[in-house]
């Protein structure tokens, strides 16, 4: 009575077992990999003009926070997302900054000298230029226009942690 098959036969059968199970695992790995990656995100379309509110409500020379409603696509859901923008108005000159910190994405606030990010204390002057802290760039400016007294903004998200401003597709 010898329960052990010949060594060569044993290793051949072992190879077959390996091939079958590796095959199944490979099929599942590819399928699940595609599943996790999700559908291809559509190439970024030109952002729309969004109403931020009346420009006459913005005081002169002092940052004011306004909100825009951004339509966001999250797979099975589409929802409206409120995003803040900072407006600095000096006479006819208007600047619009994204309130998302270009360092790591916290919400930027105002201080006596301009802007500060409370998370990691990056600071900018009232024109959005970088003053100190870990951020590598100034506040992200957003395209805007004024129509019939209403401030319209092209809202975009930008990649964080870079020295240059790069929109997220």
């Amino acid at each position, binding site marked *: 009575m010898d329960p052990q098959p010949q060594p060569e036969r044993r290793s051949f059968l072992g190879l077959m077992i390996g091939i*079958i199970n590796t095959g199944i695992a490979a099929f599942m790995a590819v399928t699940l990999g595609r*599943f996790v990656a999700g559908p291809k995100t559509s190439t970024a379309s030109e952002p729309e003009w969004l109403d931020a509110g009346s420009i006459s409500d913005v005081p002169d020379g002092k940052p004011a926070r306004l909100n825009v409603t951004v339509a966001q696509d999250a*797979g099975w859901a589409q929802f*409206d997302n409120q995003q803040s923008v900072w407006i600095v108005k000096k006479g006819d000159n208007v600047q619009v900054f994204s309130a998302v910190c270009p360092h790591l994405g916290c919400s930027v606030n105002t201080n006596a000298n301009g802007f500060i990010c409370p998370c990691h204390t990056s600071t900018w002057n009232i024109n959005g230029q970088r003053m100190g802290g870990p951020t590598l760039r100034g506040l992200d400016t957003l395209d805007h226009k004024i129509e019939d007294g209403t401030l319209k903004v092209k809202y975009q998200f930008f990649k964080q942690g870079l020295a240059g401003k790069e929109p997220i597709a």
Partner: protein
Amino acid sequence: MPEMRQTFSRAYDWCDERTGIRTLIRHALDEPIRGGARWAYVFGSILVFLFLLQVVTGIFLTMYYVPSADHAHTSVAYIQKVIPGGSMVRGLHVYGASAMVIFLFAHLAQTFLFGSYKGKRELLWGFGVIMMLIVFGFAFTGYLLPWDQEAYFGTKVGTSIAGEVPVVGQFQQHLLLGGNNLTTLSLSRFFTIHTFLLPTALVLLIIGHIYLFRVAGAAGSFSVRNDHKVELFYPKQLLLDSVGILLVFLGLVWMVYKIPAQLGPQADPTSDFLARPPWYFLPLFELLKYFPGKLSLIPTVILPAVLFGVLFALPFFDKRPTRNPLHRPLATTLMVITILGSVGLIVASKYQDRKDPDASAKLKKQEEDSQAFLKAEFKPEEIGKKPEKSAPGAAAATIKGEPPDPYTVTCSLCHGDHGEGAEGLGPSLVGITSKPNRTKEDLLKILNDPRSYGLKDPMPANFPDLSDADKHAIVDWIGAGK
């Protein structure tokens, strides 16, 4: 290459010294099988594989699935229609569930026929019977999760049956539903049971089952003639198991490609959907027709309880060492009767549905609706949309423009002069085309046959006075604006 092999072998030694993995693998693979490897023994390994497949596909499905009544269906449709590989992952999970039931019966039948539950294997067998109950628990709780018509109405019947059990019925139904009705709370509960509680229980039982199996040893063939021949689990039996697993896997993949897993329209509690249970519950469903009133407890509670009780107790009262099925006429006959009876009941229920013109027409219509929904393009759900800026404080929103005459004549009494709706009569039609199952095509179908969308009184059953042009005019106006 030799260096690589050496590095690998050194790494293996390093692990072995710290874990004893070499001994463990040796022990796992060198399981002696009396009478040698056989195809009849592949079912257990196939079940382990199917369970792993359910675990893996199930975990990945939860990446997109939302266990909430208002989003579950959309998120499942998104997996099925949009996510790459989504139809495959969900299909493997759906068909894998049926395969588990099939191979569970095969494993049970093989063990029963070969008399492999005998000889100090009461616990091993008992673990198996409990695991069968858990697999049915998986099937029952998983059925609700897509929250389509089939899921909703099937589960409604299932939970009502749970409520009929004497003494504990009402309590267990309330516990299962998280209230008195099938709601989003029930869905969350079913999800928790399906994804956390049952898997944990089954993993522990599988470990126990395999441990007890190794303690008792493989029973092997029922014929003593082959006793002199002993083969180890590795390589031959493992190869047979692997080939079996491969065939089952290929079969599942082929099924998913051929017939994608069903997903019908979202659950609509107001509709008169005709629910039919999955095939493995059909025998009990069919029996239910023959036991009216209080007697219905016989097929729903008593018969299953007796069956499981007998199965569970089997090794305790059947202590004769005889294992050959031909020498155990009572056991073998009982098994054949159970199988033939179940198949007969399934056939009977299918036959009756086909014979009854109303039921067969309704089931066919439901099947077509389901196919149509599966083919239709995915529509994302709008969540958290702010009401239109003009809305706050204003009167009820109305549809812009003058309504067409047929609307004013036929619809305005209940739905308002401008679609604003009327309390207790008809809902507002403002912006209705952005709601699920209410596209302009849907609205036309509703005007043709309101009942097919589950709309009940006071919505009329048909509109004989409206021409096709009238219907189009009404729908165009409703769809045009808010």
